[in-house]
């Protein structure tokens, strides 16, 4: 296996911050529940990228361990989110999240 490359650390973290910001804008702007869940995935992936880059800075495995935990969190989040999405679609016949902004007390 060839050696890894020595990229500047702040460029990797900057990429993670950019991806996180795009995901955050997606969560704030989009009104389709599928797109909101996908933007959340982008944000979690950006967090994982930041962990990997930080772990690669010191050459230790902790960053990859944290990435695997983020991976399991993303899997749990998306399964619950898609279950809720199916319920919303079944009840409101729409994926617009503004349809579901009233609480039933």
């Amino acid at each position, binding site marked *: 296996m060839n050696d890894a490359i020595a990229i500047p650390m702040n460029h990797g973290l900057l990429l993670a911050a950019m991806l996180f*910001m795009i995901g955050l804008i997606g969560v704030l702007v989009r009104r389709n529940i599928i797109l909101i869940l996908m933007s959340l995935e982008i944000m979690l992936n950006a967090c994982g990228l930041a962990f990997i880059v930080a772990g690669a800075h010191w050459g230790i495995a902790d960053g990859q361990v944290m990435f695997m935990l983020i991976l399991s969190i993303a899997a749990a989040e998306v399964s619950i989110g898609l279950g809720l999405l199916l319920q919303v679609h079944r009840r409101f016949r729409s994926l617009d999240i503004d349809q579901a902004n009233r609480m039933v007390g």
Partner: protein
Amino acid sequence: MLELGLFYIAATVSLVSTIMAVTRYNAAHALIYLIISLLASAIIFYLVGAPFAAVLEVVIYAGAIMVLFVFVIMMLNLGASGDVQEHVLLKPAMWVAPSILCIILFAEIVYVLSKSEQLLAAQVVGPKAVGLELFGPYVLAVEIASMLLLAALVGAYHLGRSYFVDARSGRS
């Protein structure tokens, strides 16, 4: 030097495809762009010396989680009805204010990151080191992750049942 260029190419592909994914009207098109973004992230993981994380990114993120999205989009069979409202909601008046706030936060991060000039340690951390770390000091986190996945399994099973709507709202 060539590898450094590979990093910037993969970063550009990741950024462009993520922007395309967030701005698409059609959910299926957004999903394809998101998969491209995840594959570019996997290349970056490999380049910075985390090959095991790169494999997991392809297999679990781009494979398993995205397939869940594909299944749901196919189940709902949305068609063109949702696109009209998305056109209304994606006018500049709707997205300018949140974007400006996010860009202010991003500028702060850029300012903080611009003060450091450190390089990454150019060494590969293989699957063996990750496994030793995972089942050594982090074994409690593995247990917590398994509990989380079990809770997600039970929750997804409960939410996916068809009588849930009928029992709560009283209509068939």
